[in-house]
């Protein structure tokens, strides 16, 4: 049985009070159906939910940030063309060790997620809606089961719970679909994407649970209301998980467009060696760049970063950030589904070279290997694991360039006794 020995747990923090109209997703009473209906009213089914989602400008909250309406429209189009009923899958697998927002949302506000699944299913003509939870997480499962029991018979669509193996790549949509189809939780070659051919070879909408919770709000109150928070280019709120060298770690709901510096201050961040934004598929930022960035695609994009799954980790000033990157890279290499040569061989090779760099690398040989291999693994897998790992490494070497130079100069790690910070949990065995 796997657990997530994260530094934080599903601690929910109140968001910054400056943002009007927030909280939304984090606005829950006791999680019961009655309280939920009292707060939000009954679920509405607009005549064209996809158009509403498009006007709202909702983007996926699972990490890729893909426009949700485009995905929904693709599923609807395929369903119409092939005359098959689609399937809605809510992705709550949360294999990212730095993220706790999905299980928090499912535990505290399951009805909003289930509402979103139902709304999407009705809009797309789906007859089945599946919510995927990680195996071994009994608390989240209990909360979702209880919520489902409360609304039993009241929804037009059957709601199904599925436990999925707890590994990093399980959350990739083709891997999730592969598992639901009875295979291993390993990514498959795309095209065809799940929107085209997914569960039971039917067009399948795979969306993060937070995305679907937002769909539920858009269905009720419309895109104009939903866009009142956030910015014009990045509307809405997002759940962020802040961990690391902060006094108040945990999950918060914030408005997009918020300054990253303000978020870190709100979480009580101290002096740091750098900030990792977007989880292990994210980007390392130097403290300087982090303080000046905003939670928008443009601002983070200028640093080659994106909000991803909203996981923000602050590296303390007295850790070795290079060692942290090396350790995470090694862990990611171990998370490989073992299907593609460049990933199976390239990622461990990169991890080994990074470890050598951390140990000193006076000749620069390890650094040259890393430089050679990072572009070599990109785009060579069936999923984005090699790309994500390569990006993490590149951003780390850039953000922590001073540390890298110091390692080379000394021929050893200047912080040999530093305790590890970023979690590298033992995950489920490769299915």
């Amino acid at each position: 049985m796997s657990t997530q020995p994260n530094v934080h747990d599903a601690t929910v923090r109140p968001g910054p009070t400056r943002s009007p109209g927030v909280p939304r997703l984090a606005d829950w009473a006791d999680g019961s159906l009655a309280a939920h209906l009292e707060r939000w009213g009954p679920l509405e089914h607009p005549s064209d939910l996809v158009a509403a989602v498009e006007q709202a400008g909702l983007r996926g909250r699972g990490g890729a940030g893909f426009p949700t309406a485009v995905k929904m429209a693709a599923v609807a189009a395929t369903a119409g063309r092939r005359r098959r009923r689609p399937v809605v899958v809510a992705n709550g697998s949360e294999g990212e060790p730095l993220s706790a927002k999905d299980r928090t949302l499912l535990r505290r506000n399951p009805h909003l997620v289930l509402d979103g699944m139902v709304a999407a299913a009705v809009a797309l003509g789906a007859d089945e809606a599946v919510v995927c939870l990680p195996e071994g997480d009994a608390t989240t499962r209990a909360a979702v089961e209880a919520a489902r029991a409360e609304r039993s018979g009241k929804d037009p669509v059957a709601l199904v719970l599925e436990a999925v193996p707890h590994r990093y790549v399980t959350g990739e949509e083709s891997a999730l679909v592969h598992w639901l189809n009875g295979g291993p939780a390993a990514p498959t070659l795309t095209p065809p994407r799940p929107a085209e051919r997914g569960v039971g070879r039917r067009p399948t909408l795979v969306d993060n649970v937070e995305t679907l919770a937002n769909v539920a709000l858009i269905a009720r109150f419309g895109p104009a209301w939903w866009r009142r928070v956030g910015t014009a280019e990045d509307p809405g709120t997002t759940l962020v998980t802040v961990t690391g060298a902060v006094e108040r770690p945990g999950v918060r709901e914030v408005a997009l467009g918020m300054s990253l510096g303000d978020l870190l201050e709100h979480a009580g961040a101290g002096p740091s060696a750098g900030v990792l934004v977007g989880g292990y598929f994210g980007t390392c930022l130097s403290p300087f760049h982090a303080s000046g960035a905003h939670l928008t695609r443009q601002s983070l994009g200028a640093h080659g970063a994106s909000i991803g799954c909203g996981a923000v980790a602050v590296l303390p000033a007295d850790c070795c950030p290079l060692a942290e990157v090396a350790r995470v890279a090694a862990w990611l290499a171990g998370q490989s589904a073992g299907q593609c040569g460049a990933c199976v061989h390239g990622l461990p090779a990169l991890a080994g070279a990074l470890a050598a760099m951390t140990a000193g690398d006076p000749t620069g040989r390890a650094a040259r290997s890393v430089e050679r291999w990072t572009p070599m693994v990109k785009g060579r897998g069936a999923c984005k694991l090699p790309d994500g790992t390569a990006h993490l490494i590149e951003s780390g070497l850039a953000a922590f360039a001073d540390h890298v130079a110091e390692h080379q100069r000394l021929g050893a790690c200047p912080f040999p006794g530093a305790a590890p910070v970023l979690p590298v949990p033992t995950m489920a065995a490769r299915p």
Partner: protein
Amino acid sequence: MSSLSVWYLMRGSGFVALLLLSVSVALGVVGVKRWSSSRWSRVVTAGLHRNVALLATTFLVIHIVTASLDSWVGLKWVGTVVPFVATYRPLWVGLGALAFDLLLAVMATSLLRRHVGRGAWRAVHWATWLLWPTALIHALGSGTDITKAWGLVLVGASVALVAGAAVWRVLPQRRPSAPIPTVSTGAPRTLVASTSRSES
């Protein structure tokens, strides 16, 4: 064609087919092991593997046709593909028919690879490791020249080739992936007073 030459042709072509089949199996392992040199590329291995197998099939067809024509063996056509129905040494000849059936399956799936798909092709191709021993036992049981020097040499060479290939096949791959290094040890530190873990 005199009956004696048919008899000789039948036996000779059988041994040659077995030897060629053994060469093809060995080349298959060379390919899987990705062996190559500056003068012998993997493409050569793959091409030879295929062409030697086709040549073995040709000699096998000669072997079967002559067996049918031969008055002593008198193999009926049905006995070439249905095992154990022949009148002459039914067990041993039957194994030959079984081997032929397996070879037909391997050939058909290989030639129609694009249409049968990767999974089916692989599953049937593994049957070559069943096909070869069946052919060998057929040769040992029904071959009347086994005790002669040339028979022993041909069979011995075939066995040596496939045995060597099989050993090489099961040896671990030369290219190990780098072991995942541990950079630092010690329990991850909690920077704040740990709040209660609500997950199981």
